[in-house]
């Protein structure tokens, strides 16, 4: 299925409920309480679901940990002012580095930003699919470089 990115389907629903004043609205993360997780598959444009993505497990990669990526420097986001024809562009301020894989080789197919430190549980607010998943051998780190690692646009 086609790769996707943006809000998860669950976030789409809860945010819609929030802006129209309905029940079951969106619950904001606590300050600085957002974490970048790794997923084996694409969450896909059709389901936009972390269940489809399947998050890495500590039982399989003993070093796996969601990486803090919240609102406070140096773990935060650089958010540009709204620009006509583009929207609001926001990107990671600092590099985000996942510890080198241990125990078993992994595959990264998507990234998801959770409102819980994990390594499991919480809600995924937004995601970005890899398209073609990449093999991650033992001893290899997954890194999102500073500034260019993840770029979102609200438009």
């Amino acid at each position, binding site marked *: 299925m086609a*790769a996707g990115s943006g809000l998860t389907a669950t976030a789409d629903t809860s945010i819609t409920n929030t802006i129209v004043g309905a029940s079951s609205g969106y619950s904001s993360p606590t300050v600085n309480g957002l974490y970048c997780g790794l997923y084996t598959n694409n969450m896909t444009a059709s389901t936009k679901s972390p269940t489809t993505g399947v998050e890495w497990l500590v039982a399989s990669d003993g070093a796996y940990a969601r990486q803090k990526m919240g609102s406070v420097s140096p773990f935060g986001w650089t958010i540009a002012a709204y620009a006509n024809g583009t929207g609001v562009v926001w990107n990671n301020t600092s590099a985000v580095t996942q510890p080198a894989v241990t125990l078993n080789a992994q595959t990264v197919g998507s990234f998801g930003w959770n409102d819980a430190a994990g390594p499991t549980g919480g809600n995924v607010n937004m995601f970005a699919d890899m398209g073609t998943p990449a093999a991650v051998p033992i001893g290899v780190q997954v890194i999102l470089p500073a500034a260019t690692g993840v770029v979102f646009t609200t438009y």
Partner: protein
Amino acid sequence: MSIEVTNEPPPPPRKGPRIRGGCHVLLVKESTGEIIQETKTPDWFDVNERVPRDEPKY
């Protein structure tokens, strides 16, 4: 003023607010620092270029 004639269908109407994004991913061998793979995911774009993107294809 010129009028372009085309058989292409009109673009779909713009739908409400959206968030789209992508990643620039490095796979790095920790022991040597060697980059073994560099990937830009389908919706990634250079933040410095601020390039408007096409409407997503659903």
